[in-house]
């Protein structure tokens, strides 16, 4: 087999633009980045909540979707049923969003985009009796997956094993919560005044899977970039 070697220019052209963030230890610089996207999206969610009429036209409504209102696939995640529903979803979104955004804004936006579509498709296909869907938690789960894999990678990179144990505990707790939802999600009664909807564990599973896969892909992509940088520097 003949191995052809690309020139450094060819490699450079095949990859996105490179900057200093892609070098090891980039987090110091990134940590200073203001998580503007997370905050703007968080404010948008709050604004939608304050105008209930907006939620009605943005939620995932099966009938409306068949009628051609395709924007609902993306927007349903930013609508909520109640203040209680909104409170934790939004808190988690801002925290996890900021955590991801300071590390990889593009990755975070990509994950939000893909998981938004995948979660809506998942509920459409696998939950045919669910006529309406609202809530950020699917996207929260995606960001959780993205942030968790990033953090594990960082701890591994700097050989911080205590940090890894802590992360393992947090990840285990999250996995247990999702497993519990799947196993015991079908309670006969839910406090209908405080939770006016049923939880959809599928959204969490799909979101988390998308987030983890995206993170792994981004890490792989970055390692290629870093290798390229080192190779160029050595040359």
């Amino acid at each position, binding site marked *: 087999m003949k191995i052809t070697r690309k020139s450094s220019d060819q490699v450079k052209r095949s990859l996105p633009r490179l900057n200093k963030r892609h070098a090891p230890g980039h987090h110091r610089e990134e940590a200073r980045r203001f998580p503007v996207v997370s905050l703007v999206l968080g404010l948008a969610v709050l604004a939608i909540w304050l105008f209930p009429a907006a939620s009605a036209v943005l939620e995932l409504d099966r009938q409306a979707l068949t009628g051609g209102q395709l924007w609902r696939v993306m927007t349903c995640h930013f609508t909520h049923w109640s203040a209680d529903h909104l409170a934790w979803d939004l808190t988690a979104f801002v925290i996890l969003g900021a955590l991801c955004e300071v590390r990889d804004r593009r990755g975070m936006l990509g994950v939000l985009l893909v998981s938004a579509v995948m979660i809506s498709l998942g509920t459409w296909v696998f939950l045919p009796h669910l006529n309406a869907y609202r809530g950020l938690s699917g996207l929260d789960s995606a960001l959780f997956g993205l942030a968790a894999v990033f953090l594990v990678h*960082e701890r591994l990179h700097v050989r911080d094993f205590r940090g890894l144990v802590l992360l393992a505990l947090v990840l285990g707790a999250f996995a247990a919560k999702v497993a519990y939802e799947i196993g015991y999600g079908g309670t006969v009664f839910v406090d209908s005044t405080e939770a006016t909807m049923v939880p959809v564990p599928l959204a969490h599973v799909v979101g988390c899977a998308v987030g983890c896969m995206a993170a792994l892909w981004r890490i792989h992509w970055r390692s290629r970039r870093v290798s390229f940088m080192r190779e160029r520097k050595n040359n």
Partner: protein
Amino acid sequence: MKIMIHVCLGVAAAVMSLSAFGAGTLVPAQSGLQPMQITDHAVEVVINNGFAKTTVTQTFHNPNGQDLEALYAFPLPKSGSLSEVTATLGEKVINGEVLPKDKAKAVYEEERDSGNEAGLASQDSYKRFEFALSPVRAHGTALITFVYYQPLAIDTGVGRYVYPLEEGGTDDPAAMSFWTRNETVAGRITVDVELKSAWPVTDVRTPGFEGLSTIKQLEHDGHYQIHMERDGGVLNKDFVFYYRLADNLPGRVEVIPYKPASDKPGTFMLVVTPGLDLKPLDNGADYVFVLDTSGSMAGKLHALTEGVTKVLGKMRPQDRFRIVTFESRAHLLVGSWQAATAENVQRAIGKVQVLQASGSTNLHDGLRGALSNLDGDRATSIILVTDGVTNTGVIAPRAFHKLMKEHDVRVFGFLMGNSSNWPLMRVICDASGGFYASVSNNDDILGRILQAKGKVLHECLHDASLRIRGVKAYGTTDGYIGKVYRGQQLVFFGRYDKGGDATVELKARLTGDDKVYSTTFTFPTVDTDNPELERLWALHRVEALELRRDAGLEDASEVEAAVRDLGVNYQIVTNETSMVMLTGDAFARRGIQRRNQERIAREHKAQAVRSSQPVKNYRVDKTKSAFRHSAPSIGNGGGAFGPVSGLISVCLGLAGIMGGHRAGRRSQHGRAAFSRRS
């Protein structure tokens, strides 16, 4: 009224009736005889399209050395129409026909005294069905099978069926001392439930019997079989069965018709499951808890305190509350309005948890205590928890009706246990525009209360009324509904003569606006699938008439006559009619028309057809939905993180921030090393 007097006159009642017990056999305590043994107890329940058929088969054994009359009492299921009783005494089979109460009793006593096989099934007001069989031979066995039908409404997407066995606890001591009872089953107790829902079911539960029950889901989403079995045991625990419909089902109108022929009147059951966008109420409200601590509540006080404690714990800071308890008179446990702050709630819970049951019951005084010191600027709801057995002070239902009409409050009643006085609770709640719910000790108490709370804390429809146009419908439930709460399903029965296109309209006011929800459908000219509807309709009419009588809106003697006619014509056991059981020869000898035999034959034929077919969906507004929104079930679907996942996320965030700093320091070292290597 008569019922109340009977309760007061305990000794007389002990002699005249079979007394107030849970399910079990009875024998006079002074007779020196052993009570009948219950060999086996088998229950078959079929829930099909909004109503349930319950078949109870029980075998008795007479352990005495002499022939005996078997007496068996069974708590009256809510809106249960006892329709069919068959007994096997030795080699003779006897069947039931409904006659006016006095006549049925006279026939039974004549046949019994003549030594012939006979039986009698009667109803003791709202408390129980009573069965008498004679003779059960010395050391012989008797087998009795009875069937009753009852409508089942879905509340917030959850269906509930109760097979009542538990002692009501509303007995008067004198009556109890008259009888020796046996509620122990020596052989096997089985309960088989077949659920056939036209709508998908996502969950079924049998609280308290999980370990003994096997649940099987069949091919259709709404078709389940539940089997509960145990060897021996005591018939003292209700079997409660819950099923939850899939979420986000459409708001809908269903019409189940029965019309035996084009020239005969038809009967229909109209079930409206509103799909309404009822918003949560954010304003603070006032709640008065009115708690029954009389002696009859002794066995239920634990459930009461548990439920009230949980509700108090879930109140909002903007709400206020008071607590009134009552036995022979009212007491102010929490007299002045208290904001539902954590501190006030904890203090109140402490007071509730040490309540003791004793004394007689003065419900009227309890309600009057609750109705004092109201704040006209705030909406007030009364949460009344009682078994409804009032025997001191004012006891006439019409007095309660008048009291409630004088005040602008809503009463939400929780009726504890079997044999509880639901007719009185219905008068109170109807007059105030509230609602009531029965609660079994084996129930999901918190769930029941939360269901109710979901209603109280949402907008509701006001001045709702239902009207059918196009086809002349008559004998319907009162068309004026009043309030329609979130998750409430409306069940109506009625009759019609000619089939054809009809429009059903639900008119109401919502936040000041007039709303009309309507759909058009066709009443069939002939439909023979559900003959049981005639009995259900008749029982519904009986209950409506008795409500009006209790509220003082109808003359008692006219109501009694109407109830008697309905009972005999549609062969249901009521307060005015009883079922006498005789052999076919005895019926012929006495010239008693076999109306029930004909009716049962029609019902069995239809049931055989239905059991061989998939469940039928009777929705009539499929093409043009009467409601824009989904029926409120547990709610809609949503991605909810909740506090647990939220806190996990916070932890992850902290791990990220802390780790970032540490990693930063380490990578600075790494970068330095990298530079040195370079």
